[in-house]
């Protein structure tokens, strides 16, 4: 146990740094190629002249100007905030309701058989197809947009919560019963916590789904939000604004995904060790 390795220490150090740098180079090569292709297409082949594409620099510049120069009355952060509010409202309601429904589906089969047919048909209607009806019911405004988000977020929350409960080790449930817990307290104290990782995955899918649905809704309803930035770029025949909007949507979408993962951490601390290395 006290034996040390024969290898001299510097060798170890080199071994560890080189692969890291190699990996970094590989990882960035993809992105570099992408940006380079974009830049060449836009500036060298002059696609930006025809209004078909904007160069990466122009998009960057547009992103910067949008942060202080308002578009349709709002700056970029303003639009992002508007989108975020709608998304937040729809997401919060859908997540709360979805988790409850999912847990109930898994735990009370009768309840499940009663609601399943309706749920199954409705969940396959794309959020986008709900937009017209949502506008009719709630008027073309905040509520309709939040509703579309709700529609997009609900199914993955329900399905994953249900799946989470079902995939809890049967023996864990048995153990709880043997130790004197009732069915209800088994659900609350054991099953729900153990199902959280899967259930939270549902929320995470919901984050993305809701965000995407909202962008669709903003193309049709309202005159603020990041979706509207794109639309407005399209109206002014300005690819730079369109691309700036897309970049903002993508970056924020990715950040939100990370955010939810981060916030979910305390709930799944107990299996952190298992999580490392997951893609």
């Amino acid at each position, binding site marked *: 146990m006290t034996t040390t390795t024969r290898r001299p220490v510097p060798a170890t150090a080199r071994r560890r740094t080189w692969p890291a740098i190699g990996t970094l180079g590989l*990882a*960035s090569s993809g*992105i570099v190629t992408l940006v380079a292709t974009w830049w060449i297409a836009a500036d060298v082949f002059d696609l930006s002249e025809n209004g078909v*594409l904007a160069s990466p620099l122009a998009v960057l510049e547009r992103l910067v100007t949008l942060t202080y120069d308002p578009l349709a009355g709002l700056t970029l952060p303003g639009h992002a905030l508007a989108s975020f509010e709608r998304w937040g409202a729809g997401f919060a309601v859908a997540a709360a309701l979805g988790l409850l429904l999912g847990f109930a589906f898994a735990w009370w*089969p009768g309840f499940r058989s009663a609601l399943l047919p*309706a749920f199954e048909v409705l969940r396959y209607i794309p959020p986008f197809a709900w937009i*017209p009806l949502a506008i009719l019911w709630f008027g073309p405004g905040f509520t309709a947009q939040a509703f579309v988000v709700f529609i997009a977020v609900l199914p993955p929350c329900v399905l994953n919560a249900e799946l989470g409960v079902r995939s809890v080790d049967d023996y864990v449930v048995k153990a709880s019963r043997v130790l004197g817990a009732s069915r209800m307290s088994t659900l609350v104290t054991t099953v729900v916590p153990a199902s959280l990782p899967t259930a939270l995955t549902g929320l995470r899918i919901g984050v993305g789904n809701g965000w995407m649905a909202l962008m669709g809704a903003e193309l049709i309803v309202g005159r603020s939000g990041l979706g509207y930035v794109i639309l407005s770029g399209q109206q002014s025949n300005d690819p730079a604004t369109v691309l700036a909007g897309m970049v903002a949507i993508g970056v924020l979408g*990715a950040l939100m995904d990370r955010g939810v993962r981060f916030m979910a951490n305390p709930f799944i601390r107990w299996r952190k060790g298992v999580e490392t290395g997951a893609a």
Partner: protein
Amino acid sequence: MTNVEWRRARRRRRVRATSVGAASTIALAGLWYLSTDGLGLVSPLFLPSPVAVFERLIEFTQRDYQGATLIGHLFASLRIVAIGWFVAGVIGLPLGVAMGWSRRVRTVVSPVFELIRPIPPIAWIPLAILWFGLGTEARVFVVTISAVVPWVLNSYEAVAGVDKLLAKASRSLGAPSRRTLVEVVLPAAVPTLVGGARIALGNAWMTVVAAELLGATAGLGFVALNARSTLDPDIMLVAMLLIGLLGVVFSEGLRLVEKRLSGWKESAA
């Protein structure tokens, strides 16, 4: 309990589940009817009665609405979905498999993929118009964008999720890396791959409705959006429900394929 008795019991249990489902569905439809035609609580402009929707559906199968009958619109949407889904598969499947199999490919591709992935397919619409004009190509492009993500991710996970020990066993039996992939890893990955195809099809179907903003002259999404501008909620609901029902059909169909192809798995036994 004898065998016969037990079969009866099982049938009874199934019948009970089905009838609870049917009863609740009928109850929901009844509630819908009561609040519309029945008691007139809700204006038909907000929610048309089920009867009106059904009549409209029948009428739709025979008479043109916006230049085509139901079948015409249906096929218009289906065509775009089929092409987009297929193109996405041709791109996404090999890419995902390569990412799952080679660490190097994964390192190069995944940052790009992660960068583009969060952009909703719908947000590509303006660029799609600029790049492809208003024809089928633009719609196919948007549908492809939406379907390529699950194709890639599931192919990746399918390959990466195959027991590492299998690859080791194969190599220790003298198989070179590529043959290990073809002989051992891919066959074991098939169910997950089909699962990816299913999700991709779902995404494609969901997106086609939005893609029909792009110069479509037919399609169920086109119908729904047009019905909106003339305040015709009954035709809107017909289109929506059809879109939903077809989604169920696709999904369940591919799920059956998935089940059949995983015959060698324990769960299917």
